[in-house]
């Protein structure tokens, strides 16, 4: 291992007139062939010798005391090899907080989330689990577990949960006010975050126009197509191996160690391919259950969830209630803003209200503001992160109110945003200054895009067309990443990384190494290694992989060059200090004709001193905030209220697009998830019971529901990290909801401030406004 220090990198874009050799091209991804041929191994594809099938028994009640669990009939089933309940898990009473890397949860709640103890707090909460010799036997046995419940009053809505006198879901939960005084009495309000700047009342008094509105968004699910899965093998010597589809296998290892009270060194987690995560595959659910079933049975156990289990038993995104008030002067300056935000955490604390409270107003320079955000527990599934967690709900409110301000001021809505857009040095809501950002460039690209000025079709009395715009911010994650490079005699390089690849990040990482070493991207062979094989890596989340793990790749490549130079010097019979490197070749500084290709140096490592291992580590980088803005055209059927998306353009600052096709894919996919959030998706609850836990009744957008999504990539280099690259995954889900709501208004004259924008809601709003003849 080299002792060379890797230099810090700054975001230095290429000098004008030069171009990258690899970055910006579109090579086929390394894992593509195995994914189009069905050979890629996802978690549920694991098959182990002697493997059993596990099945969880779940609570049919959203809130109930567990009076008794009788597992005797299940144990008597001839196919059954293990049965566990909450009694088999270590008791964890600590109020220690577990940082998952994307989201956080108190350990005692995390333990109850995976297996209830004396009470259940949401429908679908596990109460027991079985392992049997076949899938069918496991399902039969699960039905034989008898649980006696005493139902308790259900607290379904967050606003009701906040009322004094509401039934308490947890009698040990006290409101935390970060920086504030301790609460004296238990409450369903887990957290109250507060940010203030200037004098908000004076700001509103100075405004010429003030708009204040209420917004409601439904609980929605990430909707990854692959259900959660886990296989576990507990070895006789106490070692545990787990195979799972996860966004962070190091996080899974830590969670297992905490929940099962065992050292991380005894746990090995194998990262399988991940069939979509979007924030929902960080928290463990099945992994500790499979582990304890395996320990009891003495055989490996595999489990996966049904779709209904995914809906009720995993973590969707918070439903919210948001009140947004903004004031502006006649010349289009936003002078004051206030947000009151209630985020439904579900059964245990931990909604992303903190991120929502920061992302909502930060895109704009606002001298006076106040934000109050509340994290509230209810008897619903405990939420998890979902792509830009917390931000789309806040943007729905803020970006709609800005649209109303623009109309009241008689200004173009993009112009109003441009006039108030934050730039480098302006402070986010929580006080941290922005590093270099490209919000103004993104807005200018929207303003100048042909779509923004293209004429809309005329309505005919039965349909109406409208165009909306909205913007969005994601702060950008950094975190810890480790990569290793090893070198093969045939001139190929093994890139050993530990960031699970959810969408094709392997190729982007390989491209960075290839760019630096002067190789073809397919000379670099990326592997996502298990927890025993590579150094620590935080989860794939927060749009951090290309940024932070990419920076680690850049550093590893510099380390490789530093270590290869002396080897090249030997082969060139020159002094190591006289060796230069560029474009895949080493040469002698004063005799540039004496040169040798990097592949030749790799071929002769054995005789020049042996193998080389290069490494790159990132512990933290400055955040690289990213902005997007979307233009959408809708057609509204005035008789039925149905909204169709007829044209869509997404604009986003990627800093530097390493693999433009991958960036476009992120933008298109995020926009489409946003379309679903806006128009179709919602958990329908009745007394805490989800009434639509299938893809038939919880409707994701299909290919028929969306048009082609046009993309414009803006490149304003980030301040930190190589090439100015920024994370791109989260931003594109932030603008769509508000953009669509604004478009519906422009088409019909009615504002829908509650999601989803169903035909019924549009129809009712049109009827209340005097019918279709009054619209638009």
């Amino acid at each position, binding site marked *: 291992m080299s002792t060379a220090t890797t230099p810090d990198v700054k975001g230095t874009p290429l000098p004008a007139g030069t171009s990258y050799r690899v970055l910006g091209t579109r090579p086929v991804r390394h894992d593509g062939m195995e994914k189009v041929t069905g050979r890629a191994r996802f978690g549920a594809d694991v098959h182990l010798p002697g493997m059993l099938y596990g099945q969880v028994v779940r609570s049919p009640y959203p809130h109930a005391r567990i009076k008794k669990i009788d597992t005797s009939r299940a144990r008597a089933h001839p196919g059954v090899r293990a049965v566990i309940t909450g009694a088999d898990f270590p008791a964890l009473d600590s109020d220690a*907080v577990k940082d998952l890397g*994307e*989201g*956080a949860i108190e350990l005692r709640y995390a333990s109850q989330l995976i297996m209830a103890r004396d009470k259940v707090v949401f429908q679908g909460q596990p109460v027991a689990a079985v392992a049997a010799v076949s899938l069918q036997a496991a399902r039969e046995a699960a039905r034989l577990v008898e649980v006696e419940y005493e139902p308790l009053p259900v607290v379904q809505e967050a606003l009701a949960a906040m009322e004094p006198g509401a039934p308490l879901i947890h009698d040990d939960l006290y409101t*935390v*006010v*970060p*920086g*504030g*005084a*301790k609460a004296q009495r238990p409450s369903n309000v887990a*957290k109250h*975050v*507060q*940010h*203030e*700047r200037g004098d908000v009342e004076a700001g509103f008094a100075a405004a010429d126009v003030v708009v204040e509105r209420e917004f409601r968004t439904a609980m929605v699910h990430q909707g990854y197509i692959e259900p959660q899965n886990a296989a576990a093998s507990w070895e006789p010597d106490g070692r545990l191996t787990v195979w799972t589809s996860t966004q962070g296998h190091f996080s899974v290892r830590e969670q297992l160690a905490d929940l099962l009270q065992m050292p991380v060194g005894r746990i090995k987690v194998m990262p399988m391919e991940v069939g979509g995560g979007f*924030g929902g595959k960080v928290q463990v659910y099945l992994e500790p259950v499979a582990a304890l079933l395996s320990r009891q049975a003495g055989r490996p156990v595999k489990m996966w969830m049904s779709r209904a289990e995914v809906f009720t038993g995993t973590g969707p995104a918070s439903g919210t209630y948001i009140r947004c008030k903004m004031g502006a002067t006649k010349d289009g300056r936003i002078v004051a803003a206030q947000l009151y935000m209630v985020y439904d955490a579900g059964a245990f604390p*931990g*909604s*992303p*209200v*903190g*991120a929502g*409270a*920061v992302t909502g107003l930060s895109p704009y320079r606002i001298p006076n503001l106040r934000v109050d955000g509340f*994290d509230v527990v209810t008897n619903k599934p405990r939420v998890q*992160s979902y792509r*830009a*967690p*917390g*931000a789309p709900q806040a943007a729905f409110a803020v970006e709609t109110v800005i649209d109303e301000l623009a109309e009241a001021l008689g200004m173009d809505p993009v112009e109003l945003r441009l006039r108030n857009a934050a730039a480098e040095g302006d402070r986010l809501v*929580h*006080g*941290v*200054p922005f*590093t270099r950002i490209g919000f103004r460039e993104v807005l200018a690209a929207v303003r100048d895009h042909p779509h923004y000025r293209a004429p809309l079709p005329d309505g005919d009395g039965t349909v109406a067309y409208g165009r909306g715009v909205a913007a969005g911010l*994601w*702060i950008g*994650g*950094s975190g810890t990443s480790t990569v290793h490079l090893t070198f093969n005699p045939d001139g190929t390089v093994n890139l050993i990384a530990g960031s699970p690849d959810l969408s094709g990040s392997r190729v982007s990482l390989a491209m960075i190494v290839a760019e630096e070493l002067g190789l073809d991207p397919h000379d670099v062979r990326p592997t996502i290694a298990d927890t025993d094989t590579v150094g620590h890596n935080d989860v794939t*989340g*927060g749009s951090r992989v290309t940024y932070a793990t990419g920076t680690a790749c850049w550093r590893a490549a510099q380390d490789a060059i530093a270590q290869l130079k002396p080897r090249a010097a030997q082969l060139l019979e020159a002094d190591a200090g006289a060796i230069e490197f560029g474009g895949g070749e080493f040469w002698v500084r004063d005799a540039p004709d004496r040169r040798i290709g990097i592949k030749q140096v790799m071929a002769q490592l054995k005789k020049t001193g042996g193998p080389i291992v290069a490494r790159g580590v990132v*512990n*933290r*980088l*400055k*955040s690289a905030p990213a902005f997007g803005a979307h233009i959408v055209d809708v057609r509204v059927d005035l008789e039925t209220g149905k909204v169709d998306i007829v044209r869509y353009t997404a604009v986003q600052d990627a800093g530097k697009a390493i693999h433009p096709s991958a960036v476009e894919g992120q933008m298109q996919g995020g926009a489409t998830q946003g379309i679903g959030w806006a128009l179709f998706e919602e958990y329908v609850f009745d007394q805490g019971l989800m009434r639509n836990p299938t893809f038939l009744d919880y409707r994701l957008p299909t290919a028929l529901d969306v048009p082609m999504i046009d993309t414009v990539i803006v490149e304003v280099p980030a301040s930190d990290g190589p090439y100015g690259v920024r994370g791109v995954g*989260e931003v594109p889900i932030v603008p769509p909801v508000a953009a669509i709501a604004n478009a519906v208004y422009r088409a019909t004259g009615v504002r829908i401030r509650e999601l989803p924008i169903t035909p019924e809601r549009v129809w009712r709003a049109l009827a209340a406004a005097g019918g279709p003849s009054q619209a638009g």
Partner: protein
Amino acid sequence: MPKVWVPSPMRDVTGGQHTLDIPGATVREVLANLVARHPQARERLLQPDGSLQPYLLLMADGLEVHNWDAPLEPDSELIITAALGGG
């Protein structure tokens, strides 16, 4: 000397101030001087064992603070804020 930004709910114990000039050459020194000057700030910021309260985040000059003994510059900004808790 370093400028410290405190969370809005803490202003009741810092005389209404959002930003404070607190001397100190490291994060640890600045925090110690801050709670010496405003004793009620101690339990707002720190757990009994002296570590940061959960749900708070320390940022120094744009980077999350991992090491309280890392040096601060005289013009450094130390921002204490609510952890984002998601994303």
